[in-house]
């Protein structure tokens, strides 16, 4: 059962790792860009912008993880497509037998007159 889903799983695993990577790296970048010593204001402005970019990259990575969990759930759900509906309940057969016998008796009651 795990064989066909192995490819899927490794893909998902790769995505998880990739996203975690992004989260950590971007945070690192932000903290690297934070200090303000000895830079001209133009550079600071550019760095501010960079900080914002990294922040949104982090957010995107987190949302990606969320969608990953959803794909995981769907994959799990469809990995076992419920076959419950195809099973014939044996109780219905029993019921049918009883009803059929009763019908037979009822319908073939000989009616006569003396």
């Amino acid at each position, binding site marked *: 059962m795990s064989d066909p889903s192995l490819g899927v799983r490794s893909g998902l695993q790769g995505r998880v790792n990739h996203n975690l990577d992004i989260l950590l790296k971007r945070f690192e970048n932000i903290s690297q860009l934070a200090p303000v010593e000895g830079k001209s204001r133009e550079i600071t402005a550019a760095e501010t912008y960079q900080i914002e970019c990294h922040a949104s990259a982090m957010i995107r990575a987190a949302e990606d993880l969320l969608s990953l969990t959803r794909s995981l759930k769907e994959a799990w759900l469809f990995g076992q497509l419920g076959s419950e509906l195809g099973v014939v309940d044996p109780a219905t*057969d029993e019921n049918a037998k009883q009803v059929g016998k009763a019908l037979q008796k009822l319908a073939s009651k000989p009616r006569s007159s003396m």
Partner: protein
Amino acid sequence: MNADQLLLSLKSWPEENLEETSVSSLINRIQAQRGHFRDVNESLLEEEIAAGKDEPQDDELHGDLENKANGGTADKTAGDQESATELRNAKVKMAALVGHALNEALLGLDYISFLVSLHNPETGNLTMSPALKEAVPAGSLGFDKIQRKPDPKAIKDDEIVSRAWKMEGLNSAADALLSASEKLGREVEKESRYWEQVLAIRDEGWVITRIPRERQTLGVRYGFAESAAEYKSKGIGALRRGEDGSVVMDDVATTGSLGKAMLRVRVIENGEVKGVSVQSGNKKSTSVKDVIERARNFVYEDELFFEIMREARIMANQGIRTSEDGVTLQLGEHRSIIIDMAPLDDDDTALDVHSPESGLAQGVAMAFRILLSYNHRMSLKKRSKPPPALSPRKQPVPPLLLVRPIATHLIHHQHLSHLQGLLKSLIGIAKSASLHGEYSLKPLQNCRQPEIKDVESAVDTFMGRLESEATLVLPGGWKVEIQMSTMLGHPLYGTGFTINTSHDGISARLMGENKFSSVEEMELYLCWCLERSVVNEIRCMGDKWQQIAQGNEMRNVEKQTRKIRVEATRVGLSIVTGATGGTDTRFVWDGSEASKSLQDLLKEF
């Protein structure tokens, strides 16, 4: 001389201008006049005409005036107009802003590519806009780093400004991260609730799949796998996520072509509705499971009705009429059964148990549903077998067996009760003449034998040809066996009677098997049998009477001129006697309380 002259115009009557009245131009003009006209109907327009609103340009002005005068209707159209203009303005503004942004971006691109073209001519020239290339030759902008003496005041300013900017940037980043985390937390909550409920539905047994149209939404499949092609795609309901995460199922009112309706069977006698079947189902509950069940029921009923109509259309030769709404089965002159669709009853109408016709209607409705499942099973079996050989002709789907078995049963039952009535009256007539007679009836004889093992054989036993047997013992040693079989198809196309007579062969020559296909013929034959059996009885009663020439007249052995004639009809048995030249005297037994017996009567002659 003529005060009013007749002025004739000799120009031809203007033709209708096709351009002006074509639908597409009409729609454009209406939209220009009053925006979208989805909610307009006749009454609205009439009110507007009555209010004298005909110039559409100053709509807003009129709108204010009409607001006080008319209230609702003008309000709505003015409001629609305003929102339409707002929409248009917003669109224009947005287009302008986007154009601005595009311009700025292109300018920036030009600048950079110009700069780059000095050191990297190919890349630069590729991205420079043609206007710039014409204005200035490529590569004429250069840059260099210069060493400037740092200005301490400027440095301090820089520091302060940079600090402020950095703080701002960091704060905004932190805020963004925090709010994003909050939002994600809520999403996760909603998702988990949604999935919990979806799992609950799945555990009930419903199959969850993706919706073929929107790949991202889950849907629950409540259709049936064996439905015809039209119903396969209708069997899925989308499960969407609602406001707080719980599952909301798509509205299924539109899945059936007839809306929320179930099958209804009515028994009509002499034009009056005598019995109705009940359509039950929780109309009111809105829990997802009930919604799914209701949807499944509706789709089932819809398909059932569709298949019934399809089959009934080709059964017109058996007396089954179809119309747009329903199917009518004619049973005899005054009774008929109508099958159509009706919306769900309210929760309090119950089956009228005292009326047998309602019971019949309910039984027929239930039988239809069972038969549809049976047909699904049969088609599943057919599908599981290896497919037939490929041929250029496409085989049409044969209609399912729904109406035929039920019609067969109803017609058979009707004929059976008719036969029973007939036999009873004949025996009654015979008895009232103190003659011996009896009958016995064995209905649905061929349904007794097969053994019922499971659902399929339970239904199978009662399909197909129905046969019943009756045995009639008539005076004079006659025994008549009647076999009645009903089948709405080849070879009978209705009810057929096979009558076997056995007697001592003296008062009648014809013996053996006779086949009849109409009820009247059978009646006549049975009456004839009664006649001859009475003749035989008289003959055996003591050798006083003798049959004349195999007919129904008998001659007294002693007085050769004395004749009697035996006649048997549906209403009575009669003995007619008379002398030639005089009037006949007739004595009739009609099954009422016992009058003179035959023997006594004959002694009189």
